[in-house]
């Protein structure tokens, strides 16, 4: 069961970080960053399997695949931005974290704009 590995890693890293934090706070941040990256890499393989499955289902439906691929891109960006922001926030840099989130939002909106405009076009074409 991989969940035991991940939870074990998380708990050990958390205890380590707390113990070290009193003496060397900069090392504690590095431990938390590294743990986050390891867990993300482990999870990434599983997420890609789920995404592949979703993709195959999306192909069966008539909905344009572009929308679905855009949606997947948006999820990926959301994951990465959230991860970066959390790391920054853990290190006590709330300002940088919010900037990272802002960047993520802007990039997501940039990807979403074509969907919104095509919906608009759709509505305009319905109207006589």
């Amino acid at each position, binding site marked *: 069961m991989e969940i035991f590995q991940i939870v074990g890693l998380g708990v050990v890293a958390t205890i380590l970080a707390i113990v070290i934090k009193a003496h060397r706070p900069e090392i504690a941040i590095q431990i938390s960053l590294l743990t986050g990256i390891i867990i993300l890499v482990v999870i990434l393989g599983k997420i890609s399997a789920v995404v592949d499955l979703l993709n195959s289902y*999306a192909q069966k439906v*008539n909905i344009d695949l*572009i*929308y679905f691929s855009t949606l997947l891109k948006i999820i990926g960006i959301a994951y990465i931005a959230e991860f970066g922001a959390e790391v920054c926030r853990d290190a006590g840099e709330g300002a940088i974290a919010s900037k990272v989130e802002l960047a993520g*939002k802007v990039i997501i909106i940039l990807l*979403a*704009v074509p969907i919104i405009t*095509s*919906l608009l076009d759709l509505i305009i074409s319905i109207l006589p």
Partner: protein
Amino acid sequence: MIEFLKNWVVNTITVVMLIILIEMLIPSGKMKKIVNLVTGFILVIALVNPVLKVVGKEIVLKELHMADSNYINKKEIMASSSILEENQIMQITNLYRDKIIKQLESIAKEVKGVADARADIIINEDYTSERFGEVKKVYLYLKTDENDKKIKPVLSVKKVEIEKINSKNASSEDENSKDENSEDKVLTEKQLDKKTKQELEERIERLLCIEKENIVISLED
């Protein structure tokens, strides 16, 4: 009609399922709102688009989407390229300048009597003007073939001096003649210089379409 309805319902259910799965996948943070918004739009499109087909007003959403994303990409690239443009132009002008300097130096070295040459130019670096890249001024620092010029006159002078010194009276005349000789040398050197200068000026004029007043040629020690 029933076929259409069946397709529509299956389509809608699948899209809703996919969206629910995706909403479970996304991290629970501030991004969730935006993802919800986009998934909602996609659901609306998936709901409305088949109805349009029946009505006969089908639009190719793929093309619209492509056009919009192309437009955004174009704008993005243009925005980033305008920042890079200045840097790029600077690099290009520097490269252009180096090339012209190398050309000038090689041209100068081709001329007889020039041993070595160093060039420097001033070009119009204002990339907004029409005359961007025009060479404004050329500076050429030349080294002449001193070996050829020095040895020959010295040898000839020595011969004349040794053979003609017979009496003390003649010495004063000799001095005069020496002066004349030296003057002649200076003159010939200057003339040579003028010739090479003219030749150089003409060549540079032809190469760069620049007026002769803007070409400064000087000798280096």
